[in-house]
Structures are given as C-alpha cells and as structure tokens.
C-alpha cells in the first residue's frame, strides 16, 4: 500500500510532491511521462544565430525529421509547438479524447506536463482575485514565497510589479531586454501619464527564469533557443523538480501509468490505471490521493469515479487573442544576437485601478521562430515575402492578450461513453461566450491596439485562435462550502470523499488573466499541506 499518491508530473504535481517529500511522507507519483528522446540531444549548446550559420542538421529540430514543425492548413491548438516540444502532445489523442466544435484545449501526458512548454510567466494574484477564486490570500502570499524560492523567479520593481511579482521577496534581477523591447519601453515611459490614466501599466514580467546560478541550474545565457531547448536548466521545468525528488528515499516515480479513476473505502483508496505500454489494467492502493493531472484531466477522473449528478462540469478558460505589431523605427535592423524568446514586457489593463478584472498582454519579439512559420500567412508570393519580411522581422512584436474569465451557462464539460475509446469515454466540451462578454473583449482589444499605437508599434492583424488556445484552464470542480458532489472544500479535498484531494486549478471559481501557473503551484503546495494535516 502506498502512503500518498500524486497523479501527474506537471507544475502542480511536482510542487505537491515536493511538499509531501519535504514533510517526510512516502510519496508515489503516477504519470504517463512521455519524453522527447529524439531532438533534445541533437541541439548544440550554441546560440540561435551560431546554430543557423554552422549546424548542418539544424533542420531536424527547427522543422522536424518529418517536417512536423511545418503546420499547414487549419492549425489546431498546439500545432505551433516546435519539433522538440511536440512530445508535449504525444498520446493525448489516444488517452484524452475530446469532442467539441467550440473548445480546442491543449493537454499533455509528458514528463513535466504542460510545464514543458510553459512561457514561464509568474504573476501573483491580488486579494480580490484570490478571494473570488476561493483561495485564502494570506496563505497564498506565503505560498508564493515558497514556490519562488523553489523555482527561482526574476522580475523588476516597475509599473507592472503590482500585477506580476507583487510583494514577493527573493526576486532575481530581470534579464536584459532586446532593442525592440527597449524602444517600446522608452515610448511607454514618454507616454506614461496618458497610458496610466487609461488604465495601462507596462513593465517587466515575472519569469521562472534564473539570472543567477542556482545549484545545478545555470543562469540564462541568452542563446535565444527557448522554444527548442532547456539545456542549461535556466528556465524552470517541472521535470527538474521530479528529477531531484527521484534522488530522495521517500519518493517513487512510476511512469507509463495513465490514471483512469478511483474508488474509496474506509481503509484505502484504489487507483485504477492503464499501463500505456500494453494498455493492461493496473491497480494501486494508497491512503491518500492527490490529483494533479491538470484541470481537464481531473475532471475526467472524477467524472468516471463519482456520481456527477447532471454529468456536466463547469470549465473556465481565458479568452486569448494575439496581435502581431510592427515597430517602424526598428524595421531593417541587422540580426541581433543575445536575445531571448520569452516575453520581455507585460502590458496590463486595469481600467478601474483596483487590481481586479485586469487583462494582461505578454509582448515577445519574433526571431528564433524562423520566417517559414509566418511567411505562409502572407497573401503574396514567397520570393517577395522573403525580401519584405527580412526587413520587417526586426521590428515585429507579438502581443498576446489574455482576458479574465468567469463561469457561464454555456461553458461546460460532459463525459460521453464511447466503446471505441481506450478509456471507454470521450470528453465533450461546450464553450460559448455570451454577447456581453464578446463585446467587452472586443472593446478591450481595441483599447490595447490604441495603447500600443501610442507606444509607436502598429497592429497588423488581430488573430483569435479560438476558445481553449490560451492553455489556461480551471474551475471544473469549483471550491464550495457545501458538500455538493464534484466540488472541492477550501482545503482542496474532493467533497464527498475522505482522502482525495485535487491540487490543480480545478477548484478555481474565477480565472484572472494574469498567468496562473505560479498560483497553481502555490495552491498545489497548500493542498499537499492540507492533505498531510487532514484538513
């Protein structure tokens, strides 16, 4: 019999497991754990430009051995991933089938989960946001510090810091900006008063990125290979934590294990799984179970395991739009080495100035993703497009806007039995924004476009990749003070059970637009503590 079982090795699973292991309890992690065994070892420890100029086999990791990096036709969520990150999606079609005309989420069964492709954005939630979610703000504030000391977060004190690093201590200095962002920041500073009056605040994002060495992890080396490689471990990935835990005597990792459901009796919990190597059934027994396979994964497991009443679970996902912009003053600048692919600036829109109902835009440069990824969108021939894009690319900024999200009657998941599916079922998702929500999003995006124009960058096109594309999911098992089935107590325990906890974002009743991963990890830490304390 296992003492504690944690399901999943993503950001929340890794943090929950670390808390348990540090508390001295015996912990087993069940995980499918797909890894990239093909490309990671091929990528040399060189910067992007050097690789481009010298490496003969670069096509293998930039395009993929089977050209899997060349998405063509109607692009689904996740197809933008580079070949070395494609393993994030592996096996999901088989084990996580989903049917929807309105919701296109990305899930993962990889070693490290969706955290393998995380953009590293770290934001603390305000008191109002944590309360709306159903979290204790004081406990969360302490938990943010714990997570920050574990993973290493860099940032800066500036106009954006109330929305990013908040009051957190132990923050590493922000990485240097490239000249495209420096110019934008300069223009922001020149127009600061007017932008602030309209509720726009810009500054450096909090990032789970080391700018100083931390144990075996090295400080960021500005190789601009962030979409392809984690070679120096400067970017935090959950598998770094799991690798460390594997060295501890009270931790055991079991891979190739897909968790289907659980049953609980007075003595123990049975966890029903499939061995992904042969699809044979497996059963593990434990005293306490902590689910952290991701919001949609937990929904599947709970729907298979308990009577879900109507059979429908709510779901939240931040509406997301990205806007490529051109900064004319930066057009036609020579190739720049020493860049980085992560977001370098964040632009928040807090119209009421109360740190609630805030929208967030992350701003990126476009260099290391290669021309071939964007050039196919140009409505002109590839020869002229190449000439034009070579000049324009140094001035391109991508602004990805996340909007806060609340529950609604047409945002839900259902489990549908399906004998053709390996799991015996399929998740059906419906996600429709109402007219009021759509109008609010439209109006906010227009304000963002106006603000970025004020900063000297001109929006080219507004692209809405569809519901689910933000890869921020929550709210399937909302926190509730009643004992309603398929809800969580404030401690993270699944109501109606004694020893089953959910440590991912399933309990969140509201989804702020700020990157939620830091809060997910902080909540996972608190949930693991609650499981130990039997709360």
């Amino acid at each position, binding site marked *: 019999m296992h003492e504690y079982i944690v399901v999943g090795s993503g950001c929340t699973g890794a943090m929950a497991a670390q808390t348990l292991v540090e508390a001295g309890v015996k912990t087993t992690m069940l995980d499918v754990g797909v890894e990239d065994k093909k490309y990671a070892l091929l990528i040399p420890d060189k910067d992007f430009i050097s690789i481009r100029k010298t490496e003969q086999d670069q*096509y293998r990791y*930039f395009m993929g051995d089977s050209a899997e990096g060349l998405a*063509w036709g109607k692009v689904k969520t996740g197809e933008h991933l580079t070949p070395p990150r494609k393993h994030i999606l592996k096996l999901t079609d088989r084990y996580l089938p989903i049917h929807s005309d309105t919701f296109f989420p990305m899930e993962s069964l990889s070693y490290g989960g969706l955290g393998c492709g995380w953009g590293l954005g770290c934001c603390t939630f305000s008191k109002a946001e944590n309360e709306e979610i159903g979290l204790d703000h004081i406990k969360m504030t302490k938990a943010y510090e714990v997570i920050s000391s574990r993973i290493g977060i860099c940032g800066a004190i500036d106009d954006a810091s109330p929305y990013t690093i908040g009051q957190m201590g132990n923050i590493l200095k922000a990485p240097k900006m490239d000249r495209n962002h420096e110019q934008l920041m300069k223009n922001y500073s020149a127009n600061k008063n007017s932008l602030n009056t309209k509720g726009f605040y810009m500054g450096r994002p909090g990032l789970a990125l080391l700018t100083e060495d931390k144990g075996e992890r090295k400080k960021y080396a500005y190789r601009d290979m962030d979409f392809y490689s984690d070679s120096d471990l400067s970017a935090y990935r959950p598998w770094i934590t799991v690798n460390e835990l594997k060295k501890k005597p009270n931790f055991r990792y079991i891979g190739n294990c897909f968790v289907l459901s659980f049953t609980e009796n007075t003595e123990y919990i049975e966890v029903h799984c499939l061995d992904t190597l042969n699809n044979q059934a497996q059963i593990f027994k434990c005293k306490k179970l902590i689910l952290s396979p991701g919001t949609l994964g937990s929904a599947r497991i709970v729907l298979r395991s308990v009577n879900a009443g109507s059979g429908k679970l709510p779901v939240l996902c931040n509406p997301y739009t990205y806007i490529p912009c051109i900064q004319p003053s930066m057009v036609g*600048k020579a190739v720049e080495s020493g860049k980085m692919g992560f977001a370098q600036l964040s632009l928040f829109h807090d119209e009421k100035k109360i740190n609630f109902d805030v929208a967030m835009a992350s701003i990126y440069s476009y260099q290391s993703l290669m021309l071939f990824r964007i050039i196919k969108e140009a409505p002109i021939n590839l020869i002229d497009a190449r000439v034009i894009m070579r*000049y324009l690319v140094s001035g391109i900024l991508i602004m990805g806007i996340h909007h806060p999200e609340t529950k609604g009657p047409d945002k839900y998941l259902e489990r549908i039995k399906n004998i053709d599916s390996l799991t015996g079922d399929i998740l059906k998702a419906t996600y429709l924004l109402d007219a009021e929500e759509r109008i609010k999003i439209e109006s906010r995006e227009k304000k963002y476009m106006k603000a970025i124009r004020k900063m000297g960058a001109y929006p080219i096109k507004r692209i809405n990749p569809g519901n689910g594309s933000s890869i921020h999911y929550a709210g399937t098992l909302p926190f509730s003070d009643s004992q309603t089935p398929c809800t969580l107590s404030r401690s993270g325990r699944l109501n109606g059970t004694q020893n089953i906890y959910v440590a991912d974002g399933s309990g969140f009743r509201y989804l702020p637009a700020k990157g939620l991963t830091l809060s997910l990890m902080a909540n996972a830490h608190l949930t693991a503590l609650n499981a130990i304390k039997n709360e």
Partner: protein
Amino acid sequence: MTNLSLHQEANLFGKYFLKKLPGEREKNLYVKLAGEITPPLELTEQRILRFALNNKWSIGLLDAGCAFIRPQSELRRRLHLMFAILECSSEYNDLFLPKQRSPFFLLILIFNGVAAIVKALVGSLILKYIL
C-alpha cells in the same frame, strides 16, 4: 509522384528561390519530405502543379496567384517546404536572417510590394486559365 519527378521539382523550386540549383543535401531532403507529407492530390491541385512544372516561368506567378486566391494549394505547400529547407540550411541562412536596411530600403520594400501585387493579378489569371 516518383522520386525522379520530385528531384526535378526540387531543382525547379530551389532555383526559383536561389536563382541557382540547390545543394544535393537540400534536394535530397526535399525529395524525402515531399514524399512523406504529400496527401493524395485532387485533380485541380494536380493540374496546377503539372502546369507549374511544365512551365517553369510560371512558378512565381502561380505562387503569387495561389497566395492570393488558393493559399492552401499543394503548389504553395511544396514551395513552402522548399523555403523552410533552405532557411534551415547553414549554406543559405544569410538569405533569411534579418537584414540591415540600406539607404534604399524603403524603395526596395515598395518595389517588392508592387511587384507582388502585379504577380498576384497575373497569377490569378493563369490559375483561371488552368482551372
């Protein structure tokens, strides 16, 4: 599609981008990947592709016409494949990296923009003729 015709296609498409024949490595990669990713072609797609291969002067115009009115066409997909292969080659990467602007860069942008529109119009007419 046979390997021999894919070789011819690689030569033509490589020359379209480089104004000279591509290297053996890039050609072989094109043959391998085009063979792997090509779905069964519809009759119209076959016609466009055949016309482009038989009339190499038309490749640029058809590329422009397809970009304008048939952006998902197979011809465009294969040209895009060759584009990506050349961009991922250490030999040709200089043609794809950001370029320092010359005093005439605005003129170059305007010239290429106008040329692209003219090619798209002519290409669209050729496409109508083919289809």
